[in-house]
C-alpha cells in the first residue's frame, strides 16, 4: 500500500506546513477577538443599507400588494420565484460540502465547510423570504402548513408547491442544526479564549456546557454523522422538489423530465460559484492562504466545471427534446427562447453558464484566484439568468397568441432582489465578526500528526 502511495505524485497539502494546534486556534480565533477592522464597518453599513431597502420594498408590498411587481397575465410568476430558486440553489454547495464530502472523507472540505454552511443558511433565509411574501398576504403565510384549522381544509397535497414547503423547511432546519452542532466545540474554544465577561457568557450559553470530555466527543461525533446522513439526501431532494414546481406544470419549457437532475446540478454549480465568490476575497482579506489553499480553489473549480457540463447537457437535451417531441408548442418555445424577444437573456445565459466555464479546463485559470473569481461571478449571473429564462420565456408566449405579453421587473422587484443580497451580505458580515469562519477543531485534526503533538 505504501509503495503505491509513493508512486502517486504527492498532492498539495490542504493546510500549509508549519502549523500546530495552537497556531491554528490562534489564527482563526484571533479574527473574532481582535478589534473590529475599519473596513468591516463600511462593509456592514453598506449591506445594512440594502437591508433597509429590502424592508422598504416589503413595507410597500404589504401596504399595496403584489401589484407593485411586474407580474401580469400571462407572466404570473416573476422575480419572486426566480430569486427563490436562485437563492435556494446557492445554498446547495454548503450542504454538499458539509455532508457528502464529509461522508466521502474529503478532508479538504474542512477549511471551507463552516462558512459554506453559513452561506447555505443565509441563502435559505433569503430564499424562504420569497414564498412568504409572494402569497400577497404574508401574515397568513402559515396557511401553507397543514394544521387542524377552522376552515376544515388541508393544503393541496397533490401540488408541488406544498412539497416545496416541506422540502425547504426541512432543509432550513437540518442546515441550521448541522451548522450549530458543528459550531459547539469551537464556541467552547471561543468561550475559553474570551476575555470580557459578556462574551464569555454569550459563547458559554451557545457552547451548551461543552467541556471536551471523551463522552462529549463521542456524542458529538455520532450526532454529526447522523446529521450528515440526514443532510445528504437533502442535497438531491430539495432542488428536485423545486424543479417539480415547474416540471409538474404543463407549460412548454417547464414540463420536462430532465428538470430534476438538471436543477440539482445547476444548484451545486451555482453554490460552488458562490462559495468561490466568497472564499477568494475572504482568503485575501483575512490572510487565510494557509488554510484555504490553491488546492481548495482548484477542487471547487473542478466541481463547478463538472456540474456546469451537466447543466450544459440539460440545455442541449431541452433543445433536442423540442425537436424529438415533434410538438409545435415545444419547438416554438425553444426557437422563441433563442430568437424571440428574450434572446439576449438566453445568449447571455449560454455565455455565462457554458462558454466562460470552459476556461476552467485550463490549469492556470483554476490556480489564479482572481480569474477563478471572475468565472464564478459569471456563473452567479448566469444561474440567475437561467431561472429568468425558464420562468419568463416559458410563460410570456401563452398557448393563445391573444394572451401573449411581456415581462420586466419593476423598481420594487429589483429593490427586493438587491435588498435580499444585502440581507445575505449583512448576515455574512455578522457571522465573520462573531463566529469562527473556519472550523478550528477540525483544522486541528488534519494537521500532520507530529506537528499537532508538538
Amino acid at each position, binding site marked *: 500500500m505504501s509503495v503505491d502511495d509513493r508512486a502517486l505524485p504527492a498532492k498539495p497539502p490542504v493546510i500549509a506546513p508549519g502549523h500546530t494546534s495552537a497556531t491554528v486556534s490562534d489564527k482563526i480565533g484571533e479574527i473574532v477577538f481582535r478589534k473590529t477592522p475599519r473596513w468591516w464597518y463600511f462593509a456592514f453599513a453598506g449591506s445594512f443599507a440594502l437591508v433597509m431597502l429590502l424592508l422598504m420594498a416589503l413595507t410597500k408590498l404589504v401596504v399595496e400588494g403584489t401589484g407593485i411587481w411586474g407580474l401580469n397575465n400571462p407572466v404570473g410568476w416573476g422575480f419572486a420565484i426566480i430569486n427563490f430558486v436562485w437563492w435556494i440553489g446557492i445554498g446547495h454547495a454548503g450542504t454538499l460540502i458539509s455532508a457528502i464530502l464529509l461522508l466521502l472523507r474529503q478532508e479538504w472540505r474542512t477549511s471551507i465547510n463552516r462558512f459554506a454552511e453559513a452561506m447555505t443558511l443565509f441563502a435559505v433565509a433569503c430564499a424562504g423570504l420569497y414564498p412568504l411574501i409572494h402569497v400577497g398576504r404574508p401574515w397568513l403565510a402559515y396557511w401553507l402548513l397543514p394544521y387542524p*384549522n377552522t376552515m*376544515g381544509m388541508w393544503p393541496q397535497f397533490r401540488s408541488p408547491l406544498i412539497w416545496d414547503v416541506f422540502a425547504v423547511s426541512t432543509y432550513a432546519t437540518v442546515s441550521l442544526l448541522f451548522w450549530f452542532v458543528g459550531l459547539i466545540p469551537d464556541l467552547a474554544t471561543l468561550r475559553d479564549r474570551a476575555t470580557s465577561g459578556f462574551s464569555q457568557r454569550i459563547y458559554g450559553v451557545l457552547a451548551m456546557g461543552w467541556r471536551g470530555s471523551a463522552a462529549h466527543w463521542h456524542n458529538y461525533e455520532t450526532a454529526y454523522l447522523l446529521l450528515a446522513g440526514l443532510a445528504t439526501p437533502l442535497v438531491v431532494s430539495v432542488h428536485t422538489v423545486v424543479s417539480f414546481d415547474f416540471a409538474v406544470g404543463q407549460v412548454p419549457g417547464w414540463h420536462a423530465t430532465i428538470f430534476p437532475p438538471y436543477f440539482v446540478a445547476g444548484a451545486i454549480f451555482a453554490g460552488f460559484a458562490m462559495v468561490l465568490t466568497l472564499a477568494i476575497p475572504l482568503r485575501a482579506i483575512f490572510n487565510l492562504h494557509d488554510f484555504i489553499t490553491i488546492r481548495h480553489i482548484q477542487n471547487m473549480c473542478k466541481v463547478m466545471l463538472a456540474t456546469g457540463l451537466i447543466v450544459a447537457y440539460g440545455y442541449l437535451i431541452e433543445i433536442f427534446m423540442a425537436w424529438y417531441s415533434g410538438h409545435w408548442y415545444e419547438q416554438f418555445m425553444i426557437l422563441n427562447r433563442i430568437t424571440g424577444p428574450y434572446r439576449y437573456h438566453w445568449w447571455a445565459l449560454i455565455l455565462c453558464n457554458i462558454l466562460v466555464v470552459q476556461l476552467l479546463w485550463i490549469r492556470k485559470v483554476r490556480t489564479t484566484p482572481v480569474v477563478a473569481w471572475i468565472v464564478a461571478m459569471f456563473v452567479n449571473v448566469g444561474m440567475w439568468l437561467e431561472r429568468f429564462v425558464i420562468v419568463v420565456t416559458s410563460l410570456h408566449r401563452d398557448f393563445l397568441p391573444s394572451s401573449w405579453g411581456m415581462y420586466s421587473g419593476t423598481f420594487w422587484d429589483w429593490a427586493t432582489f438587491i435588498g435580499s443580497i444585502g440581507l445575505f451580505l449583512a448576515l455574512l458580515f455578522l457571522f465573520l465578526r462573531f463566529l469562527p469562519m473556519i472550523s478550528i477543531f477540525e483544522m486541528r485534526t488534519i494537521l500532520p500528526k507530529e506537528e499537532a503533538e508538538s
Partner: protein
Amino acid sequence: MAQIFHRSTNTFSRVWMFGGLFLVAGGIGLLLLMSRSSYATGEGIVLQQPIPFSHDHHTAALGISCVYCHWGAEESAFAGVPPTATCMNCHNLIWNQSPMLAQVRESYRTGQRIEWQRVHDLPDYVYFNHAIHVSKGVGCESCHGRVDKMPLIMQAESLQMEWCLDCHRNPEEQVRPLSAIYAMGWKPTDPEQGARLVAEHEINSKVTCSTCHR
C-alpha cells in the same frame, strides 16, 4: 479558571430545553383552542338587543311560524328581519300600552327602524343563499339551534368554514323532509332516510372554492 456560570445553570438549562418544547406545543394548542372559542366565533353569546324579544315565547308558547316574521327564508337569499309593521300586526291589539314595547310603537309612528343587532352575520367574502338551503331540506334548527328554547336569541353554531363544510361534505346527516323544515327537535325516522332525501331533493352540495367565495 473561574467558573462562568453558577452550577444551578445546569438544571436551569435542562428544564428550559425540555420545558421549551412543552411551552411551544402548549402555545400552539392554546391558539387552536382559542380560534374555536366563542370569544372568536360568537357562538352562544347573547347580543344586547334594543328590545328583549323572546323567540321562546313567540314560537313555542304562541305557536307563530318562523316565516310569519322571517318571510324571506324560503325564497330570498336572506331570511330577513321583520319590519316594525309585522310586530304591530299583533301589538296594536295586545300589550299595546306596555312600556316595554314603547320603542316598537315609536318606530311604527316615526318610520325609524328598530336597530336590531344581527346575530348570524357571515363574512362579506362568503356568498350565502338562504333560500337554496331551506328548499333542499336544511331545517331552521340545523343552523340556528333550538330557537324555541331561546328566551334571548343567540348564535347556536360556530359559523366557521369547517362547520359549513361538515354539512356540504355529508349532507345526508342534516337534511330532513320539506314538511319538517320548521320542526324543532326533529329526528330522522331511520338511518337511511338522509341518503334517500339527498337523492330525492337532488342535493349536489359543492365544496369547490368558488361555491362560496365568488
